[in-house]
């Protein structure tokens, strides 16, 4: 998988996520988005993101620079793994109430095979100038009350811009 990514000059965008702004709605308070997004946590299958009141999940991921998205890597249990996933580029303040109000940038219908960590290609042209990504998991494979996700990695490339957060003051002393 890593070889595929490397061949296409795509990188894992985990470094580009603006962690302070990440928000996940309808997550269980002890099984949060941290478990699927953060390096290390996401590779542990025991650490999962779980939905709380029903099967839907809404994850808002801002980036600290403009990126291009290429594919998603999702790993989840076969039964409770997400099925229909809608992706919105550059939409802020999304909620479950207005998730149907905008046309999604891309809709993924995941198969159990894809949930084992294979990269799922996105409509590359739709994600050329992305500052934030909203992932709306609408339902899961078995129609269960709970949706579980083990890993969510975003693969893409950075647009060559100055990353303001990496600017450092150069002192004389």
């Amino acid at each position, binding site marked *: 998988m890593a070889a595929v990514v490397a061949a296409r000059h795509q990188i894992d965008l985990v470094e580009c996520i603006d962690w*302070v*702004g990440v*928000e996940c*709605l*309808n*997550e*269980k*308070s*002890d099984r949060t988005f941290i478990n699927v997004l953060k390096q290390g946590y996401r590779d542990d299958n025991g650490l999962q993101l779980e939905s*709380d*009141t*029903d099967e*839907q999940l809404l994850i*808002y991921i801002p980036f600290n620079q403009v990126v291009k998205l290429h594919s998603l890597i999702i790993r989840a249990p076969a039964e409770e793994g997400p099925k229909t996933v809608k992706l919105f580029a550059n939409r802020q*303040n999304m*909620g*479950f*109430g207005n998730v149907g109000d905008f046309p999604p940038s891309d809709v993924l219908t995941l198969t159990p095979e894809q949930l084992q960590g294979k990269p799922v290609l996105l409509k590359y042209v739709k994600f050329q100038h992305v500052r934030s990504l909203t992932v709306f998991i609408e339902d899961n494979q078995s129609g269960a009350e709970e949706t579980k996700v083990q890993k969510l990695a975003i693969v893409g490339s950075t647009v060559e811009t100055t990353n303001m957060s990496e600017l450092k003051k150069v002192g004389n002393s």
Partner: protein
Amino acid sequence: MVLEATMICIDNSEWMRNGDYAPTRFQAQADAVNLICGAKTQSNPENTVGVLTLAGKGVRVLVTPTSDLGKILSCMHGLDIGGEMNLTSGVQVAQLALKHRQNKHQRQRIVLFAGSPVASDKKTLETIGKKLRKTNIALDIVSFGEEDDNKSEKLDALLSAVISNENSHIVHVPPGQAILSDVLISSSIFTGDGEGGSGFAAAAAAGAAAAAAAAAGGAGGFEFGVDPNLDPELALALRVSMEEERARQEAAAKRAADEASKNQTEGGESSGQGGDVAMMDASPVVPVAAADKGPDFMDEESALLEQALKMSMAESAAAAAAQGAGDVTMGDGMSEDLALALQMSMQEAAAAAAAGGTTTPASSDMSRVLGDQSFVSSVLASLPGVDPNDPSVRDVLASFQQEEEQRKNDAKGKDTEKQG
């Protein structure tokens, strides 16, 4: 220090004109809102608070979430009372206001004041509650005023639909019992989230307690006039000592009752004794002894022992009292008596010396000893209850010294006569 965005939903329906919370329901509510706003904005500098009204012409957002306390407080003035509370749309508007908060890192909370009957049915409320929970919004409900129409049941249903991980609370405040804001300040809405129990809440609680104490003449609402949240250790210590004191008093009372019944069975001759024992019970000595010996002191033998102890103590106390009475008279007359005794003995010595003409070795020794003023004063000082500086003692010593000198002069005179 929870970073939070809060929307406060004020009930300004016609029901708020009722005066069962002083001064009116609406004013009491306004005070409580001010208190909550202060607590929220001070627990974290980045916290924001917004206010909306539930009744009137419709749900109206007075202030969107802001950290400017002045803005929040000023919007509370000149609010119109009217119409019916629209809880469902109010909560949803609050949810929208929270969704568009500036800082996504803030957790979301709605504080709902519900003083009028709840019109919506339970099912609708549960749906709304689930929606709130789905969007990670916590809900605090202050239920006051009207109690009919299954209101509390409905609100409990709403809360239980929202609650996840103990983040939401409900407080029912019955009318007339206490000031609304005072009840809230010691409630879980202020102290609930552990770290949410901010310094401000504690300070405000102390302030409110002080104010309440000033107003109600020291009632304060707290058990010992100390807010247990403010100083838990002090509160614990107070409670423990209170319990110990109570146990001690109970034991003493029980023992006194036992003694009384025992003395009654013993007959008339011990009636005086019973009086003594009762008297001793009133004194501080016996309760201390009882506390030392513990509560399981009630078997007969030890009870007898106890009685004997008391009697002996009564006797000793009587003796001490007699002695004390003696002491009192002696205290006045002691130095005079002593002076008299000293004087007498010295007079004897002096008389012997005078009668003998020439001093006998013993009496001369005595007079020499007594003549040594520093020695005498040190002896007097070492005697208990004697003040060497007492004027009467001094007089005696002075007079003795004068005699001694006179005697010496006489002897000298005799010597010179012999020589001459």
